[in-house]
């Protein structure tokens, strides 16, 4: 069984851990000015929304070139968003999103991702 890529995993860890640790291990951060703290509180919604949007709106081809994508995934994610905001139930939203995609792909209404 190959273990060559374990070294790659170690290298990836070495460039990831500093990003995770720097903020938590830097003592002066709790003395940030108010505007800095306010800014950091907005980071979560912004990044999570960016992750979701990029995941459903952008596809990359075999050459790695990104392009805009419109598909049933939009409907599924928006349904999850609406249900989560309305019912405050993320699990229910996830189930509905998955069902929308399964039904759309199963009936041939939407194509499978390549």
């Amino acid at each position: 069984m190959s273990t060559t890529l374990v070294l790659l995993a170690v290298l990836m860890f070495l460039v990831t851990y500093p990003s995770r640790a720097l903020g938590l291990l830097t003592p002066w951060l709790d003395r940030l000015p108010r505007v800095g703290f306010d800014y950091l509180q907005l980071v979560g919604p912004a990044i999570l929304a960016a992750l979701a949007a990029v995941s459903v709106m952008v596809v990359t081809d075999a050459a790695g070139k990104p392009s805009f994508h419109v598909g049933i995934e939009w409907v599924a994610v928006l349904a999850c968003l609406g249900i989560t905001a309305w019912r405050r139930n993320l699990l229910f939203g996830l189930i509905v999103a998955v069902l929308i995609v399964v039904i759309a792909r199963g009936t041939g209404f939407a194509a499978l991702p390549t």
Partner: protein
Amino acid sequence: MSAAGFGFVYGLSARDAGFSPIEAIAMSLMVFGGASQFAAVGYVASGLAWPAIVLLTGLLNARHLLYSMALAPWFRRVPLARRAVAAHLLTDEAFALSIAHFRRVGGTDEWGYWVAAIASTLIPWNVATAVGVVLGGQIPDPARFGVDIIFPSAMIGLSVGLITGRRELVAAFVGAGVGVVVTLVTSPAVGIVTGGLVGPAVGLLVPAAAARETAPLGTTPSAERYAMPGTHFDPESEPASARDEDAR
């Protein structure tokens, strides 16, 4: 559910890209970052050189610096060694769940962080990775079961739990828009980080009066407002006076 579903899909993808189970699981344990692991699978499959993969991983995971900085004030009384361990477990899900929980209870709940990071994310992610990479060959077309939609749906659902006012809403919309546009002209790694940097800056332009939390943090009205979707808070299960007393 997000970590398990996404981890399973990662395991499948890694298997298709030629990763052995040891390699796939090692990456899940050490990198523990879904988006960057998915990207790495694609990069390895396409034959990209390792230095480029490592560089792109660092860029894609740079968003954790912002998470880490946002959590820092809550962790200032936690011993250094435990903060160092907590840092490795910091993921999108752990951040969203724990910071919403801290806001809800009006203070740091270290145990809550470990539950969010380990029980809700680390364990399901790694177990699902193992299942995906070992058993994946028996599933002919996993996309038919909608597993690829779990990650973006979970991310948007988690962001809902963090949106408590106009500033957060503006930051989320701008972050998403900027993220997509920049991704289209550069790469997902650059787009996501740019969205995460620009969104909050624009969100801060919303006047403070319009964004101000009306209920003091730690009180029952504030807790209801900050409750994570589908998770902790049930105002019927605990008297408001007791909760407010705890918060004080």
